[in-house]
């Protein structure tokens, strides 16, 4: 079996977003997508080392998109109805899509709701099967006050990422 190595890791919190310089579109993303993008950015990976279609993305979100779900539904009685932009982010895979768009990563995708334990084995499996040459792994833990009540935890906003490739 080929050796697989983690080449970079990163961790970000909501406080890091204040210093983020990721373009004008960044400010329009939901919190989870912002954290996911910033975590990937902090890895400093040179994606040009791989064909873009051979870079997979594996993402897990602890509480899915629950925080954005609440935000979207609060706008249900607004004039003109709730925000279509926010609706797009009521899927945890939206954060994965934002990573793909920013870095033009067209490879395989997997998106889970749950903890981060499955990320490493699933990403390694993608590489071992030959479905990808490298994999961007991202874990997001985002829960506003509404969501925190549901999942019985404190509000949180952080993400971590690591990049995996054939050794």
């Amino acid at each position, binding site marked *: 079996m080929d050796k697989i190595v983690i080449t970079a890791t990163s961790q970000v919190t909501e406080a890091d977003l204040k210093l983020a310089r990721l373009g004008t579109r960044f400010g329009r993303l939901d919190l989870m997508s912002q954290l996911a993008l910033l975590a990937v950015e902090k890895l400093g990976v040179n994606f040009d080392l791989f064909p*873009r*279609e*051979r870079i997979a*993305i594996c993402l897990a*979100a602890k*509480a*899915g998109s*629950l925080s954005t*779900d*609440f935000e*979207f*539904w*609060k706008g*249900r009685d607004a004039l003109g*109805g*709730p*925000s*279509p932009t926010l*609706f*797009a982010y*009521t*899927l*945890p*895979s*939206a954060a*994965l*899509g*934002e990573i*793909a*768009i920013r*870095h*033009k*990563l*067209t*490879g*395989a*995708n*997997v*998106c*889970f*709701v*749950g*903890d981060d334990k*499955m990320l490493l084995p*699933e990403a390694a*499996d993608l590489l*071992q*099967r*030959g*479905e990808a*040459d490298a994999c961007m792994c991202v874990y997001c833990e985002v829960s506003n006050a509404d969501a925190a009540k*549901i*999942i019985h935890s404190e509000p949180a906003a952080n993400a971590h990422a690591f990049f995996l490739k054939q050794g």
Partner: protein
Amino acid sequence: MREPVANFLPQVVIAGCGVISAVGCGVASLQSALRANASGLRASERFNSPRFQSNIVGAVAEDFFRAGEDDPAHRLATEALQQARAEAQIVLSSIPVARIGLVLATTKANIEALERISENRPCSDSARRHLQGNLLAADLATEFGAGGKVQCVSAACVSGLSAIQQAAKIIQRGEADAVFVVGVDHLSAFVMAGFTAFKAIDPNGCRPFDAARCGLSPGEAGAAIVLVRENFSPSSAIKIRGWGTSNDANHLTGPSRDGSGLALAIRAALNSAKLLPTEINYINAHGTGTPYNDAMESMALRAVFGDACPPFSGVKGMLGHTLGAAGVIETIVCVLALRDNFLPGTPRLNLPADGVPESLVREPRAVEKLNHVLKLNTGFGGINGALILSHG
């Protein structure tokens, strides 16, 4: 590109299916609707409001849910799993509980609970808990005797196909001998309001691949498949032959205009299945009925298959767009096509749009033999999925 290793791993086969949808409860109901090219789309009093673009939806029968049901996602998933488990009962009886896993595919899990909480309506603890897909998956696993690996996949409208891939991988890695795959999403004001905000709903009911198509029709369903290692099932069982996923990396909610992302997923699936495009006998398309999706899908088919596109059709005019359940229920459509050697039609199609390959199947018809079938889905976030099923 490295040699795919999927074909050197244990084969994974389908041992049971279950479904509850707009065309009824049970696989036989789905089969009858496919034979009749019938549509389950109906006007629903529940969504008869100016807040929504249309009230034509693919809803399950009103009497399926209990009065005051606050956990419809769990109810739909349970029904589908009971059916699938019953069909696979003999196979499952020989597999230890610890060697049975479960993978749930959903986009919104029990979003009914969020509406109830937001509006201060009664909501049980379990209904609240099932707002989280991973906890819904865990509870279903406990209830259905799946003591092995449990996952919740949420990859927009590709969730179902992604869950089947994950389940097959779990078996191939030797982490389980059987895995329940269950796809579920229920109709909700939340999702209806979201698609209305996008102006993505066809006021008259969706018409995939039609010249006059102008949007999708939301639907709800529970769909389940039991996957097992091939040595636990008859050699005639239908196999999961290969798969591929990709990302358009283009737009969060709109498909790529040239179909290149979906074409990439199809080629990856063909590569992993070690099949040539000419060996595919039927394609079950994503076919939402939105102008851009169907045009993109037509381009992807042309890119891979050229002028020799195999017969293809889409069934969302029958079931509506069931989101997280779509990939699972439409895979069951493919299973029925393979078992019975017939090509499903495209319900509600009137006049095919320009640019749609001529091999679009309008009405269901029998064929001599289907060997390999390709299932496609695409979703928000630019995700594309392809799955190939084959006869044993």
